């Protein structure tokens, strides 16, 4: 997955404007960035990914560091583009009928695919977190960034990142506990966590 020891050469070639080097960087980092953007609920993750790499091209002459630092730097740019997309979507008039249709689909149409249901369940639980908590959790869990790298990506201190991480986990625990205490049970939670199924009596 990682470029490894060839990374300085690839980065130097990208600085010179070599298309092959940029293709290699895009193939290495693009899928992870797109995964992060989708997990964060970006409105148009593919466009957001394109904007992110254009920003990387514009600011590459300011970057200094190794491969891990470059990866964290690209994710920081992608998060900035993500925040911009959130602001743009907040300024847009919302389509209320679309929200109703989605809610109706959730209640009355069972998910045909188990993976789709699991994804929607995870998305619902993640929506209970604040954006910063969600970012920290995804960066730490999905992308295996360290505390320092996560702090540099979201632009906060390491202590703040630890606090956000702990609060996110505690909130997840409360949400899972509340879902298990519900008599009717939440089908999406039951599908997500097998231990919370009514038969187990969690």
């Amino acid at each position: 997955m990682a470029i490894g020891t060839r990374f300085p050469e690839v980065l130097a070639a990208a600085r010179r404007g070599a298309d092959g080097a940029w293709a290699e960087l895009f193939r290495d980092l693009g899928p992870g960035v797109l995964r992060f953007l989708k997990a964060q609920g970006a409105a148009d993750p593919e466009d957001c990914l394109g904007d992110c790499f254009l920003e990387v091209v514009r600011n590459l002459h300011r970057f200094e560091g190794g491969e891990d630092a470059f990866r964290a730097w690209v994710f920081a740019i992608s998060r900035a583009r993500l925040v911009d997309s959130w602001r743009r979507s907040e300024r847009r008039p919302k389509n209320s009928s679309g929200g109703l249709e989605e809610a109706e689909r959730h209640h009355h149409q069972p998910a045909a695919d188990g993976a789709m249901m699991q994804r929607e369940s995870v998305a619902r639980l993640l929506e209970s977190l604040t954006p910063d908590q969600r970012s920290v959790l995804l960066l730490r869990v999905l992308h295996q960034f360290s505390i320092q790298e996560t702090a540099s990506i979201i632009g906060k201190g390491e202590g703040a990142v630890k606090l956000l991480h702990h609060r996110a986990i505690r909130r997840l625990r409360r949400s899972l506990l509340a879902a298990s205490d519900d008599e009717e049970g939440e089908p999406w939670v039951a599908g997500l966590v097998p231990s919370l199924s009514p038969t187990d009596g969690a």
Partner: protein
Amino acid sequence: MGLDESEVSRLLRGDVPNDDPVWGEVSSFLDSVGSAYPAVPTSAFEGRHLAAIAHETRLVHSELRRPRQGAVKRLFTGSHRVLAGSVGAFLIALTAGVGVASALGINPLGQLLSPPPAASSVVPQATSAKADSSSAANGDNSDESGTVAPEAVPGSVPTPTTLPTLGPTATKTPGSVGDEHKNSRATEKANNAATPTPHITKAPTPHKTKTPAPPKKTPAPPGKGKNG
């Protein structure tokens, strides 16, 4: 229920704490996050993004080159302006200086090219004053003294070595100013009649030309007048 960093790390690794079964659910959820958002291949839109990246790369490289050229051009333009301005200011100052010097009657180029000797600037005044005082005091009209002889030669150039024989200037009284003018006129006419002495006016310094009194001839007594 507090969490320390080791417990969080265990949760992230998928290790379930034994004391609280809910933590096991949290750990299962964190595992499911990874499976809910799998890595998406970007090959479907890779070509479009790479084309945009290549275009942006060319734009960035051209923009990075342009400010350097502009900086050099600005530097040249600025230095050129400073140089032209300084030359213009120097020419204006020089013209103004020459104009002022000409208005004062000073030839600045002559001053620059032939500076006068320092000793000759005092001597002509001394000779004229000595001549006037001696003639006024003594009434001596025997003006063919030996000191004048070198200057009487036409075409000879007055040198400082001939003049100090007259000695220092005599003391003047304030009332003798009018007599001095009269004496100088009479002396001038007498000199014109006797020996032409235009040499003193050829003194090198311009201010020496303003001391026209020749030291040689003493005027005649007042009763004799010009015709005598």
